[in-house]
């Protein structure tokens, strides 16, 4: 993979309208050769339409899609150097595994011996050796998906498109397939473009994620940037769990900033924001980045400030809700201003969940670099 190479897929100002509904609204993005690219978004955001336009099942209303430098506008799906793994897998029910996987090669007239070798190789790759003669109705959903994967990979496409590849699998299998897909992609070196509505899937597999909202790209970034540096409220809220507070930017200098949030108080940051002074902004704060404390007795008023280490922000509240999830416990804490803030706390010992209970007065603090200031 060289940085100088042109992107394998170039999407240029692509829009797609179905009647009056705009599914994809002027999207432009580049997908680099060899990357695991994920289109993430809620259902109906246009991500699947975008994928289907890359595959050729839908034509853009406006704009153009280039694959490996070639304009695909007039290229039908059966002539495109991409293959797709369908959400329903679309394994041919009247063919056994070998015939399913060899279908594309047979159609393109590859010699029989080569078909046999390549099918065997593909089945080995997806760990389906020994299943050659099985019919699809004798296989589980996970196995059928592997057939669909092998059937596409055997064509050696430039890009493999996956439409919600894990949505039909149960939770355990899904977690396993996340690793396997990432591993497989690494092994074959083919560019993967995946559509999903599941942020865990996107974060765990992707090299880069495009978050799509209402037909537009809300943010395009590697997974960790998406989580730690969301560009806007939509991304912050869609990727992971987050507390969002509206506020006013009252201080903005190169090395510090402050946002006055009604209900939460003044939130300090140890970096500048470069937003207009007095602007309406939002603070996004992840639940796991907030520390919980029992306030020291008899000094209720100043307790929070004293409990917080230097340079930390602090707040006080009352526990109104708790849910024990095993590895963490989630608390819903009512701030003095009445708003609810969510805090998660790892259960580092077996009794950590007993530290707090309903209606406990607690103090919270978080580092000055934990909140993210969002301008939109």
């Amino acid at each position: 993979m060289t940085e100088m190479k042109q992107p394998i897929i170039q999407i240029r100002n692509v829009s797609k309208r179905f009647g009056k509904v705009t599914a994809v609204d002027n999207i432009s993005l580049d997908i680099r050769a060899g990357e695991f690219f994920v289109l993430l978004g809620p259902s109906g955001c246009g991500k699947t339409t975008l994928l289907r336009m890359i595959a050729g099942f839908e034509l853009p209303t406006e704009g153009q899609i280039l694959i490996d430098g070639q304009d695909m506008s007039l290229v039908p799906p059966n002539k495109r150097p991409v293959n797709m793994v369908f959400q329903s897998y679309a394994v041919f029910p009247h063919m056994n595994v070998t015939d399913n996987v060899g279908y594309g090669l047979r159609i393109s007239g590859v010699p029989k011996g080569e078909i046999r070798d390549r099918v065997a190789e593909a089945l080995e790759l997806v760990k389906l050796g020994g299943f050659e003669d099985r019919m699809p109705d004798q296989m589980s959903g996970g196995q059928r998906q592997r057939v669909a994967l092998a059937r596409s990979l055997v064509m050696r496409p430039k890009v493999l498109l996956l439409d919600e590849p894990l949505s039909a699998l149960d939770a355990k299998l899904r977690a396993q397939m996340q690793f396997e897909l990432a591993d497989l992609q690494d092994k074959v070196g083919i560019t993967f473009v995946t559509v999903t509505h599941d942020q865990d899937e996107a974060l765990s597999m992707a090299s880069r994620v495009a978050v799509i909202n209402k037909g537009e790209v809300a943010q395009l970034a590697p997974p960790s940037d998406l989580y730690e540096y969301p560009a806007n409220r939509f991304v912050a809220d869609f990727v992971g769990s987050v507390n969002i507070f509206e506020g006013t930017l009252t201080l903005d200098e190169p090395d510090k900033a402050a946002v006055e949030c009604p209900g939460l108080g003044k939130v300090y940051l140890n970096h500048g924001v470069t937003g207009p002074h007095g602007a309406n902004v939002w603070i996004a704060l992840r639940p796991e980045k907030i520390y919980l404390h029992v306030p020291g007795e008899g000094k209720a008023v100043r307790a929070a400030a004293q409990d917080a280490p230097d340079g930390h922000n602090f707040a006080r509240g009352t526990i109104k809700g708790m849910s024990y999830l095993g590895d963490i416990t989630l608390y819903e804490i009512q701030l003095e201003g009445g708003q609810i803030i969510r805090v998660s706390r790892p259960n580092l010992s077996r009794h950590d969940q007993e530290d707090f209970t309903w209606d406990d007065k607690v103090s919270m603090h978080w580092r000055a670099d934990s909140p993210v200031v969002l301008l939109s």
Partner: protein
Amino acid sequence: MSGPLQDWKSQRKPFAAVASAPVFWLALFFIAPMAIVWLYSFGQNAGPADIDISGTLDNYKRATEWLYLSIFLKSLAVAALTTGICLIIGFPVAMAITFAAPKWRPWLLLGIMLPFWTNLLIRTYALMALMGTNGYMNKGLGGLWEGASWLRTLVGMQPLEAWTPVQLLYNNFAVVLGLVYVHLPFMVLPLYSALDRLDKSLIEASLDLGAGHFKTFMQVVVPLAAPGIVAGVMITLIPALGAYLTPDLMGGTDSQMIANVIERQFKRANDWPFGAALSFLLIYAMFILIALQSMRSNKVKEPR
């Protein structure tokens, strides 16, 4: 599974109670008359209204004479041709309905089923009115002919000879056309239900893997629609084989089918035993067709 009312072996009484009425009905009005006709086929006329069931096989011998066998084979050929044409016309129609916008589908299906709401006799006479020598089809063709003739005079050529109406009715062509017209819905509906169940992403997957539309049709659509094709063929072929009204009204003297011959035995010829024998030969032929189909569908179910 042995829940309540699911296994007749463990729930004999309720099943007997439910089953007795239809069994009685079938026995009285289907099996008994058929048995009587079956017995007649082994008898001979002993008077104008008297049949002596003597156990003779003469009726069957006569029925297998070339005169009747040829009509039988011709009926089979006409029915097969009808079925083939129905399949060729019906498949695109069924595909079109399957791929139509969902809001249109019920209306299109209604259009297919609408003829069922009209009596066959009326439909047949309507078709005849269309196809007669004075019918609208001939009038339309005549109009075109005259138009062509007029065009010729415009460019200074000799006008064409006067239009002679085409004989569309009372021949084998009319019979096949009438049978296709009557049986087309029987073909379209099973095809539609098979194609409707077909997961459209299978078609997309085939295209995605490099197959063109024709290859996709042959490799994916047709094999997966096979149960619908078989059902459509059977449900068209069997009634077409026993068709009576269409050849009677629309056919010529040489286009009678086996059902017309049978009808003549029961009516004008007043030879019930021979008519019965012909009827049962037709029934046996249909049995064989159905048996072949069920053998085939059993084969499909077996895992390879």
